[in-house]
């Protein structure tokens, strides 16, 4: 060997060592945000490096094994979970999972947090923290529910020494983190595992379903919107339905509509659940309203209150209430009729699940809004205005989410047209007389039936709403209205919402409704605006002065 070859060897050996030293750390993990290191070691060198790192961290007390479990599928494999600790306090979310095969590490996954420099001596006791959380949650906390002292990696970076406690509240399964020094709330999140599934609606349209996973089952509990939205499947148990509506029992998880794979096929439950959420969205986006009571009241939908196949044997009152109807039962509870079996007709039409029409769902929920605002008395003119407001909201929600047109799943001024086959409707806002309802105050029903004709006389206000948007000529008065146009429907919706919910008293009259909506138009768009003019012309055209 020439003398020169010895330095070559030394240089190459040095290079190998240097390269390994500099390049190996880059292979271990990816930085997953400030202070967080995501670990996905599956290849030989990475696994060996992390194996050694875990040994060092265990020796230093930075990792503690939570235990090792045998693999139930692959024989010989085992899985060990190791929690990260900082000065004896668990780091929330810091965890490594090591898979071994016959003692040989196969993979390491997890995340570890770096750069933790906080003091782990809490000023508050666990009892202090539990008291604070109880106050925050509005729930009593028993002595067995002890807060855990943890180091919390903060979303905005850095760490906080906190007490962690999971509490079941009336609306949520919430996890609280309170500062172990000051008692301030650092983080709260819902531990309800929400997810988005899909389902087929009554008209075989695919919708998204906001659901919650409990014990491996997907449940129709919407945890993504501010209020809890439940859809219960009463499985045709009318007695249970009535007992619940009368407050004689509370429903539980077994009553919640459920699905095994989050691909929902119960069309009644899908539409009830989705449309309830859409209605909440409309109220929020259009009026900045937070649910029925503006305080995110829980919204509860009841589907399958009776069994379809029993339709022929039930009293007509049950048929009319629980089969061919939908109603708002107060306290945020809606009940949707079961419809009739295929091939069975009433009034010459087949009737599907009553949750299958978005305007019907929104109509019932709007009764809840009225309950918490003007609380219009459900008889005579105030009752007609109550119904009209629900029709207005129902139609507005339909236009908010569907394309204008005719037929199923299209937005129009018909009410309930998606419920029957062939498509029909209960009422028309564009032409109330087509369904036997008055389009002019002079034609109002003045008898006592239907609480003084609340479902008939609503046509007067409905038609005023229609004319204010679309314009046109009232068939009775012959008066023309210059509407704001379909593109500006939002303005008229806001005017009627403001007038009906903010200004009307419980015993309001049509005349009051005119004055209230004109005031709303002036408030929102100014005196003399085209909106005020349209509203004024519309009420005049329907004979309300």
């Amino acid at each position: 060997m020439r003398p020169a070859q010895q330095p070559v060897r030394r240089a190459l050996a040095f290079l190998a060592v240097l390269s390994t030293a500099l390049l190996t750390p880059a292979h271990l993990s990816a930085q997953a945000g400030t202070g967080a290191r995501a670990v996905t070691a599956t290849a030989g060198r990475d696994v060996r490096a992390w194996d050694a790192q875990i040994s060092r961290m265990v020796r230093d007390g930075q990792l503690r094994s939570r235990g090792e479990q045998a693999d139930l599928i692959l024989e010989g494999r085992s899985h060990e979970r190791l929690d990260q600790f900082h000065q004896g306090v668990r780091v929330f979310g810091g965890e490594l999972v090591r898979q071994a095969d016959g003692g040989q590490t196969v993979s390491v996954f997890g995340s570890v947090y770096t750069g933790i420099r906080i003091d782990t001596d809490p000023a508050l006791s666990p009892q202090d923290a539990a008291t604070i959380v109880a106050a925050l949650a509005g729930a009593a906390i028993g002595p067995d529910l002890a807060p855990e002292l943890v180091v919390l990696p903060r979303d905005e970076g850095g760490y906080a020494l906190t007490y962690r406690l999971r509490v079941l509240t009336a609306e949520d399964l919430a996890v609280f983190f309170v500062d172990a020094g000051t008692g301030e709330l650092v983080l709260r999140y819902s531990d309800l595992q929400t997810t988005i599934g899909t389902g087929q609606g009554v008209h075989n349209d695919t919708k998204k379903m906001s659901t919650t996973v409990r014990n491996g089952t997907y449940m129709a509990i919407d945890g993504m919107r501010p209020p809890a939205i439940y859809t219960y499947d009463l499985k045709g148990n009318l007695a249970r339905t009535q007992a619940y509506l009368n407050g004689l029992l509370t429903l539980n998880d077994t009553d919640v509509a459920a699905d095994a794979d989050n691909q929902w096929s119960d069309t009644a439950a899908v539409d009830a659940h989705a449309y309830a959420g859409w209605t909440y969205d409309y109220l929020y986006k259009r009026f900045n309203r937070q649910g029925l009571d503006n305080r995110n009241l829980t919204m509860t939908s009841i589907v399958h209150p009776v069994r379809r196949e029993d339709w022929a044997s039930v009293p007509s009152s049950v048929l009319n209430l629980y089969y061919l109807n939908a109603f708002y039962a107060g306290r945020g509870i809606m009940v949707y009729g079961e419809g009739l079996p295929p091939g069975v007709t009433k009034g010459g039409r087949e009737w599907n699940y009553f949750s299958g029409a978005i305007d019907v769902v929104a109509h019932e929920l709007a009764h809840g809004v009225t309950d918490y605002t003007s609380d219009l008395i459900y008889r005579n003119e105030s009752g007609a205005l109550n119904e009209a407001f629900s029709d207005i909201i129902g139609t507005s929600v339909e236009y908010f989410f569907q394309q204008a047109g005719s037929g199923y799943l299209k937005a129009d001024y018909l009410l309930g047209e998606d419920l029957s086959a062939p498509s029909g409707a209960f009422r028309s806002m564009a032409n109330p007389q087509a369904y036997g309802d008055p389009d002019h105050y002079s034609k109002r029903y003045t008898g006592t039936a239907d609480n003084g004709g609340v479902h008939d006389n609503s046509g007067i206000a409905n038609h005023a709403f229609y004319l204010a948007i679309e314009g046109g000529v009232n068939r009775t008065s012959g008066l023309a209205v210059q509407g704001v146009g379909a593109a500006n429907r939002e303005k008229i919706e806001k005017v009627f919402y403001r007038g009906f919910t903010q200004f009307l008293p419980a015993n309001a009259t049509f005349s009051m409704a005119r004055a209230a909506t004109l005031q709303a138009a002036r408030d929102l768009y100014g005196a003399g605006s085209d909106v005020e003019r349209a509203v004024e012309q519309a009420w005049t055209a329907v004979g309300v002065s």
Partner: protein
Amino acid sequence: MFTLAVASEAAPALARPPGQQAVRPQPPPAPKTATQPDGKAVAVPPQTGGGKPAGTQAGKPAPGRPQAPTGAKAPPPKKPVPPRTSKVWKGRGFAAVSAGAQLAAPGYTSTAVFKVHAEDATLNADASIGIGPAFGARGGVRVWKNLAVGAGLEFTSTDQTLDVTGRLPHPFQFNQYREVDGTASGLDRAETLVAFEVSWYAALARRVDMFVFAGPAYINVRQDMATRIQFTESYPYDTAAFTGVETAPVSGGGIGVTAGVDVSYLVTKQFGIGGGVRYSYASATLKPSAQPADVGLGGLQVAFGARILF
């Protein structure tokens, strides 16, 4: 990455004992010319020492021709400077180690499709590669004149920065997307280059030499690639905020080319130092998810190191 190679001054010179000046080969004398009355230049045969010019007497200068004074020495013939390429490399080979930096590298774009709220979300990443350390070794043996063949091995470790745009489905409605964008940095990338290289040696000065090299190369890369967008959202979910990306380590490689030049200064007969640049390029198709991405590998590197001649 780039490695340096230094050829010793002794090795390429003609064989000589250590310490002795190299003897440069003398070029043959240029043919003399004379100008004829018609102005044409014709070749004049060189005079021999004993011959007389025709038409002249012995000892007397021929009329009309200048002569050097008697007794004066004729100036020594000017020593011609040989072209540097004429310097013949007589060494057996070279080896070199280097450390430096990768200054520029080709970026790439990648796409990922992933599920969000029961719908397909998309991620588009425009990656730029940062500056990172580079280490390597080269070696070769002379096969013909100044030509050597050999191999190179290089490692680079760099960070990637991703300009990310994405479309995230709305949780409650189909076909309603939220556009997000942001930057993710600190993604790892490491490359290993193995090259077959042909090198040409040239002497630039007494102790300064140069290798120009090129050849096919295989470049392997192991890098993080973005697979999902991390984001936050809150009711009514009409917007979403980009917070980062989820990544997956991906490996691959491709055959390409490498070329470079290095210049060295010889400190001793066998050891020198030097620096130079190398450019390499290959491409690989990496598949961090169902969507493959064509990724350019290599780049421009500068490095300094030691070289050894043998």
